[in-house]
């Protein structure tokens, strides 16, 4: 079956995504949305930031435009650029502009990865002006009340270069995401994959073991996402030890000794 193609601004999420709130994040986000405040999601990788955005887009019934930022992402990539078509120049909107024009939710994933000049276009959108200046067109797009800007950011990468500037971060409502408490995480894994609760409990225990090793040889512990991957493999008939090894351990590190140690941990559990 060929994949279904649609324009980014037409991407409405129709089916309720599974999301398990940990605190008051849903209420806070909704309040921020109504008050037209931009939101910053902080938290380690794979703890549910993107899923949260999908859930909120579904709840608020707005299209969700996600931009995964990379180190070559420039302001033009967000705002738009001239292209040439049949000998004439033609302006093409970037994802951010489209989101503003259509009153969508624009989610810039891992914003610190993007080039510094991108912040210039974000700033006027993120304060009470709520406008998107488009220098090349000499235009200004005013954001409708439905538009919402959300950024995500992983404070765990403690590199000086990859830090969010104060001038940027102080424009946002910040929501902190962390790994859920064990019981909740078990529920999530079970919900997502249909694996048996005891298996899920073991997986969560294993994840917490790797989180104990954070800063002691691992840069990051296993995320909920990795647990879900492992649980899916287990559901697919792979033995738990192999599933943990391929879905979690290998994803966490390349260090040979660490691999052995983490494997010993998983084989102790199952």
């Amino acid at each position: 079956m060929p994949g279904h193609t649609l324009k980014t601004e037409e991407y409405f999420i129709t089916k309720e995504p599974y999301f398990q709130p940990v605190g008051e994040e849903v209420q806070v986000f909704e309040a921020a949305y109504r008050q037209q405040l931009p939101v910053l999601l902080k938290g380690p990788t794979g703890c549910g930031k993107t899923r949260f955005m999908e859930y909120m887009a579904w709840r608020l019934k707005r299209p969700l435009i996600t931009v995964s930022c990379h180190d070559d992402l420039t302001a033009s990539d967000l705002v738009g650029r001239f292209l040439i078509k049949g000998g004439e120049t033609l302006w093409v909107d970037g994802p951010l502009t489209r989101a503003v024009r259509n009153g969508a939710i624009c989610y810039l994933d891992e914003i610190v990865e993007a080039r510094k000049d991108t912040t210039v276009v974000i700033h006027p959108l993120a304060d009470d002006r709520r406008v998107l200046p488009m220098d090349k067109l000499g235009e200004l797009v005013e954001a409708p009340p439905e538009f919402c800007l959300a950024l995500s950011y992983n404070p765990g990468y403690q590199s000086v270069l990859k830090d969010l500037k104060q001038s940027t971060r102080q424009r946002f409502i910040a929501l902190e995401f962390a790994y859920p408490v064990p019981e909740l995480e078990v529920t999530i894994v079970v919900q997502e994959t249909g694996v048996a609760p005891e298996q899920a409990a073991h997986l969560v225990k294993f994840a917490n073991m790797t989180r104990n090793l954070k800063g002691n040889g691992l840069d990051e512990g296993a995320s909920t996402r990795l647990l879900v991957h492992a649980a899916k493999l287990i559901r697919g008939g792979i033995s738990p030890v192999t599933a943990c090894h391929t879905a979690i351990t290998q994803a966490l590190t390349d260090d040979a000794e660490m691999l052995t140690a983490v494997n010993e941990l998983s084989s102790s559990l199952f």
Partner: protein
Amino acid sequence: MSRAPLSVSAIQDLLDHCLEVEFSFIKTETPARHLARLPRADQDFILAWVKRLASTHIQLAYQFIERTISVLSALDKGIIEAWAVHAMDIYDRFGLRPALIVIQEVDDFMRQARERKQGTVLAQHARVLLHFLHGLSGRELKLEEGAQAYTDTESVFLPAVISTLETPAENFRIYKVMAAYFWAQNWFGTFRAPLMEFVTQQARPEEFQARFHRLETLRLEACLRRHLPGLYRDMQGVAQALGTAPLPLAWQEAASAVAQPGVDVYAVLRICAAQADRLPPCPPAFYQGAFSLEQVARVQAARLAQEKARFRHALYKLQSELARETAPPLVADAPEFRKQIPEPGAGEQLETMEITVDDKPVPVPENVKKLMTSIIQDLGDLPDEYLVPAGPGEYDPALLGEDAIDPDEVWRGTYHEEGAFLYDEWDYQRQHYHKNWCAVREKTLEPTYDGFVTTTLHKYHGVIKHLRRTFEALRDEDRLLKRQFYGDDVDIDALVEALADTHDGGEMSERLFTRMHRTERNIAVCLMVDMSGSTKGWINLAEREALILLAETLETLGDQYAIYGFSGMARKRCEIYKIKGFDEPYNELVRGRISAVEPKDYTRMGFAIRHLTQVLRAVEARTRILITLSDGKPDDYDSYRGRYGIEDTRRALIEARYAGIHPYCVTIDQEGRDYLPYMYGPAAFNVIDDVAKLPLKISDIYRRLTL
């Protein structure tokens, strides 16, 4: 073609020279005669090692000849080499006598070597086991080698070698089971009961302790079975491989009693006391090791006092933070801390507690959480008296133990290596490293504010201006690339041309865009400044001026840089002076430290290169450069001079290159051309003819180096 064996007199000449017979009065005639009977290849082999050993100690070499001739036929040459190297390491660590014993008791070494071959050596797996222990959660236990296997609640001690089973993999499983078992003693609260008191109160303490030890092991085994089923299978597997007999009948009832969930150490003590007569002595489990109750009590008491103080102090800090965040309350009432167990768990599992103020949970920093886990691990609870914040004056600051050891402090007492970085050093005669030979301490230079910087900046202000101009051209810059396939903007020139081409019937070019391209320098440079006594006077002045000028330049360029000074006196006192770290800005303080650069002791270079290699490796950059500013050959108070120093420095530089670092040397030693090519390579150094020109030239050298 095999060469003819050496004659007795030829060998004796060689030995006389090696063993310095003139001074040592060693009789070389007999060994020479023995050696003469061997084929030439063996002679060469032994003589080469005698030479290497003699560079360490003559007696060692002499004894080696004696012993090696007798074992040569029976042993592999690889093993003999390992034996000699081991003896030299022992000499480095413990001195001559133990090293001589190694040489004399070659059979012992052979037996150990065989054991090591089939067994598993702790040192090889220590890191894996340590990660394993840390992963299991709870207090971060340390791992150490010990004659017996036990835990003192801070460290887990395991034997150096395990060769009980046939293959290394199986023996490793024993290590793993042992490590997990000692973790379980800590985690499942074996030491929560005052065992020392219990045991000494008994009529037959030793018997009681043995019985309790075995019973408690059964309880922990059951805990492990519930929590780590995979490990329990390993346990069973090893026990089977060892042919362990099943538990005696009399024990089985007690075993199932202690295996119930929820049974704690007190229950085990009760059972142990009650069933004294019904439980005959039982062979220990293969992993249970020993109890060191005295040591546990001591370590535990010290930690409890310390952690209580730390925890209460942390609460105090938390309290003042909370007070700052919230508006001042009308009643000046300090927030009251309470503990809360979110949801009661399975009993034996440690609860995660929350600290609450007015029934609302307070976010607790990571280190305090660890502290809490450790306290709960010891006591099974967070007692109420722990929840009283302790401000200044309410605790003994010594208990906090937060201050790192002051590097100067270490020298007040006797020599010891605590808190120092240890680095190997290469011995070219031995053709091997001295292990953990240099004790390196990193100190921070105390700044001097004496107007030196202002004078220098004034003196060279013309040069600095010029430097800024030249270097600004090198800065990271966005360059506009034209005629690109893809880009941010339309390249109008290209478009006009393309349209003209199409009008003429030609094909339209697709390269119609402009794109900003950022040329990143991405360089990290570490300056290693010679602070040896020989730099006194002009050289030191030139060095400081050069540092100021170079720092100004680097600031213009925007490269990451660090400046460190080095000096030392003998291997136990190697000092690195931090002038500017990579993460520090170039400010008054750093300028003050540059002014404070002064001649100290000697020039031991190897350790400085090795240490700064580590520093550079921790920095994220595409290119890493280590520039040495020096005034002469490596030279130190002990034997670190002449060829030894040069060889070690060369080795350290090779190691640095392996780590992806480009070393470079700027020297004012006119003889530098004689030895620098050997150390740094033919193109990685620069000899400056006139000391006074160093400040002027250094920036230029740097520019050429990084262009």
